[in-house]
């Protein structure tokens, strides 16, 4: 099976690094990292990931702004985006739904749970 490509856009440098280390350890994924929205968008256009994990609160461009740009760009509009959030939050969910985001992943959990959530989304989207 092909390794699935994941792009994670989050300003927490350590968080990205550890998600990458953990996920790549499984041999199922290649993980690309961007620490801000702008870098994230250009990386998304370049590597065409299977899924993007996108943090909501970032300095500069917020996750929602990044999402909007991704969805308006022909090169990236088809890519599945899952918003990363520190908490389950109605307000954010509504904003995200308005901006056609598909999925939500809560950050504080063990890698096993995170991986299951990612696989679940990929399966639902017919990517695996």
């Amino acid at each position, binding site marked *: 099976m092909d390794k699935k490509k994941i792009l994670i856009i989050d300003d*927490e440098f350590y968080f990205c690094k550890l998600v990458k*280390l*953990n996920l790549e*350890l499984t041999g199922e994924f290649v993980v690309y990292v961007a620490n801000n929205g702008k870098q994230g968008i250009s990386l998304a256009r370049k590597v065409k990931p299977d899924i993007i994990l996108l943090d909501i*609160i970032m300095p500069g461009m917020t996750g929602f702004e990044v999402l909007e740009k991704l969805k308006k760009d022909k090169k990236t509009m088809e890519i599945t985006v899952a918003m990363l959030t520190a908490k389950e939050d109605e307000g*954010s969910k509504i904003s995200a739904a308005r901006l056609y985001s598909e999925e939500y992943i809560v950050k*504080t959990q*063990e*890698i*096993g749970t995170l991986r299951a959530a990612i696989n679940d989304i990929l399966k639902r989207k017919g990517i695996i």
Partner: protein
Amino acid sequence: MCPDQMFSVKDVSILAVDDETEVRNLYDTILTEEGYRVTTASCGEEAVERIKQEKFNLLLLDLKMPGMSGTDVLKAVPDRLEGTSVIIVTAYPSLESSIEAIKSGVCDYVIKPFSPKELRNIVRMVAEKAKLIEENKKKERELAVATAAAEAQKLKARELEDANEKLRETQNMLIQAEKMRALGQLASGVAHEVRNPLAIIILGINYLEEKLPKKKGRNPINDTLKIIKDSVKRADKIIRMLYDFSRVTELDLKKEDINSVINTSLALVKNKLKLEKNIKVSKEIKIGLPKVLVDKNKIEQVFVNALLNAVQAMPNGGQIIIRSYDKLLTEPGNGAGNRKNDNFKVGETALIVEIEDTGIGISRENMSKIFDPFFTTKGPQKGIGLGLSVSKNIIDLHRGFIYAESEEGKGTKIIIKLKIAKEGGANG
């Protein structure tokens, strides 16, 4: 006199300040729809100009704006803002800015992004409070006049005094409730920042678990990893509680069968109960009960909190009984009657759930405190004292009633009264 009757949104003027057009439009649409008089300003400078021209009842203020910030606005025209209730709207409250804002008399917080419902609730709460205070001041003035008047006026003064006392009571209650909410909001803002590093620590441990040479059985390395992980989880749990505490303002109401809510709650604590060997749980469920209009997850949370408290109150084992039944309320008291906080009428049938234990009980002295936030007798390792206060918030929001009966050394019964859903339509 009930505040609902004297509260009319038509005489409430709001100035909404935000540099984002979208947010301003949202304010305009939602709050105008509610009937408020809404003025918007797109920056701090414009806000100050408006405040100089007109006196507003309520100010919705973005903290971070290019040019003059929210706090700058508050500092620029403090005199003109006397009597104006201020709600700060911010994406990411830092502790510092929050404290500064509270010092300058801010009433409440809304964290961005917010839902229309959240906005409506908070604005209404603050507006109601402002109205009450205004009303109260008016009464106070009247009272002063009346007291100064002749002997013959004494009777009238007495009446006014009573009214005044009542108003003051309501006002205090509202202010207290709001302070708690503001505190919760603050805590949740900080909690959010703490959750990121916690997530990182957990992922770090996960990596080490995979990478360290695996030794069989117990060994210091595995033990250490487990201790770190458990501790992080404990911290995360506290944060989640704080967060829950701050945001019980929205309900997702559906018609539910209370017995099935009880069953899910029991399932949720099943594992915990299994560990406590000598605890017996029994159900005394009435079948065919009418449905209740509730937010299932929130009511589950209430039952789980009560069940966990019961377990914790019986370190040497005992019995838990969970009951459900409906009851015609024939006497005033415990939420029934004509007082402001009475959600039930005498003669109304309520749905009642009781969670009873044979544990250590609650002392007389503590009975009045158990629903206060952060009141706990369990010590820092075990409790943070939010369980019952969150539960009370939830039940209040459902227009129900929660109270406790207890005898030290014998046991405790938590009693929850809920409204029965009306027949017909999905929302009752």
